[in-house]
């Protein structure tokens, strides 16, 4: 018996199928585009499952179109992260349009969470726009930032203000790599604050697409002096958690 989880995020849609042992049997990913339901339909066409559960910002749309149960990203990421690292009690998820810090009780239930509100500060979108401003490809933005030679402080958290701050740093001749690391550090400062409000110690599971960025991982671990663990394909953790939760419904 197979269960599916679909995570309709702001940038990408992820579909994960799990077998009855909770192992990932299949995963698919596509860009969200302008018509998330059409894209989601394409993903689920041709796969068969016993039940599907939706998460992500498009979950309610999916619920209406496909009459499927939904779960918030918070619970889905907590469930997915716990399947990879059963002892970890803190999860950080940074996706395209939001970031969340979650702490769990020993039994895996969500104890407390923090989420950014209304703006792109501290999200994948921020990094994406900044990479573009600096002429880097988002896929190796983190690697480039790690090659920085000098520390540099970016004070703006706001995407719009930070972009003009970056432009003026470029004009002052600062190296793009240094600026890149400064930008990563500014996101880390913001999410570190969120993490410390939900949990003060122990390892952290880092999920969501931004967890693939090595500079984010390194700076986060350095800033919090806590281990940062990243599952394989961290961007799939929400969909994976939703698939596991679909299987949990009796």
């Amino acid at each position, binding site marked *: 018996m197979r269960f599916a989880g679909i995570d309709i995020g702001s940038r990408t849609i992820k579909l994960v199928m799990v077998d009855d042992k909770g192992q990932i049997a299949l995963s698919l990913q596509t860009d969200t585009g302008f018509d998330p339901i059409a894209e989601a339909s394409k993903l689920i066409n041709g796969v068969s499952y016993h039940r599907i559960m939706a998460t992500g*910002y498009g979950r*309610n749309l999916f619920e209406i179109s496909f009459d499927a149960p939904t*779960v*918030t*990203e*918070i*619970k889905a990421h907590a469930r997915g992260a716990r399947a990879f690292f059963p002892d970890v009690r803190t999860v950080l998820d940074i996706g395209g349009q*939001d970031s969340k810090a979650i702490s769990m009780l020993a039994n895996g*239930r*969500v*104890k*407390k*969470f923090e*989420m950014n*509100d*209304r703006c792109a500060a501290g999200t994948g979108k921020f990094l994406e726009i900044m990479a573009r401003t600096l002429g880097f490809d988002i896929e190796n933005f983190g690697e480039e930032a790690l090659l920085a030679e000098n520390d540099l402080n970016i004070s703006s958290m706001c995407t719009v203000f930070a972009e003009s701050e970056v432009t003026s740093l470029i004009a002052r001749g600062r190296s793009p790599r240094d600026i890149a690391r400064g930008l990563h550090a500014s996101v880390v400062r913001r999410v570190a604050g969120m993490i410390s409000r939900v949990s003060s110690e122990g390892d952290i599971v880092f999920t969501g697409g931004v967890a693939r960025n090595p500079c984010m991982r390194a700076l986060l671990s350095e800033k919090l002096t806590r281990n940062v663990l990243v599952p394989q394909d961290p961007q799939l953790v929400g969909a994976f958690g939703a698939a596991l939760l679909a299987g949990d419904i009796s």
Partner: protein
Amino acid sequence: MSEDYKSMWLHLGLDLAAHDVLLGILGKAYQDIFLSQNNRPEGMGYFDFVMSEVHGLRIKELIDEKKSGRKIIGSYCVFVPEEIVLAASATLVGLCSGADFAMEEVEKLLPRNTCALIKSSFGFKLGKVCPYLENADMVVGENTCDGKKKAYESLNSMVKNLYVMDLPQVKSAQGRALLKTEYDRFKKSVEELTGISITAGSLKQAIRTVNAKRAAIHRLSSLRKADPAPISGLDALLANQVFFYDNPARFTASVNKICDELEKRVKEKKGAFPEKSPRILVSCCPQAVPNWKLPFIVETSGAVIVGEESCVGERGTRNLTDESGQTVEEMMDAIVDRYFKVDCAIFTPNPDRLDHIQEMVKSYRADGVIHYGLQFCQPYLIESMPIEKALEEENIPCLRIETDYSMEDVGQLKTRIEAFIEQLR
């Protein structure tokens, strides 16, 4: 209703085109938010009617009162004592401050980072869409938070007959003395406005009228302790909102009538939501009409709101005024005592508020608290952090929200609130 009331609104100086837009939005929102609910008590029909006529029949009634010589006093705060107003044969109404209106104009007078409630009160004035305000013979501002007290300085140039009441910020003997002085001064001003001297008889009657109104709300609140909750949080909030607009005696009778129905529902275990739905206490900033954003999100996400620790709610209605006094002076003291207990965040320190939240969590059997803060409302937002900490130490889940009247954060709020409800299940 529009056609019948147009000349009345025109006469009040409202901007008819803008007012039509407002009523259109209000009507649509009411339809989507209130009338779409399932399992509503029949007694809500009265409140539906009140809301459908909130700028119509109620205004006409107030104009008729004025014609008969009665004065209308508008207020923005629960510290304005209705007992004194009624005793001088005047009528107290709450003024509009629950929706964004004419924001471009407002931001010429107030900084952008002013709380939504203050901005809204200016918006209704500048947009000429609040018939309560335009109809008022006296508008009472009160020195609560810094935002409000400074904003009244600007409002003063826009509103004729603005009366500003000072308020204490510390619950000391001096603080109480200040409140007493200010209530005495207010009494005198209201008497001057109406030309009617307050007597022991009229004050006692006024205290009884306002107490009856509060007692009816207490009865309604108490029925919400049942599981399943016999009334939705939205509908109960609406009753608390109408508290500020309606004729007191009629309001009391209507609330008591709905309570009779709710008592039956409780006996029959009939609820607005299924039994064992997660139960939420909303605490913090007031939710003025038509600010139904938070309860709408909560109650369309499967939880039920069982209490409001708020000015529009229990903070505003808690405690009756002692009616045993025989002289005006004794009763004025009783009024001061009653209002001095209000645990508004302008007081420092304000430990009663945390105690009340904890008491309410217990008595309404809430599973969690949503701390509803209006952005830039410094006093309540600063209190939110120690309150969250104290609740969590008692294993009471708490979600701190900071929002305004705009709809731009509804998606994010929905995710956070749904996740909070998942946490409570």
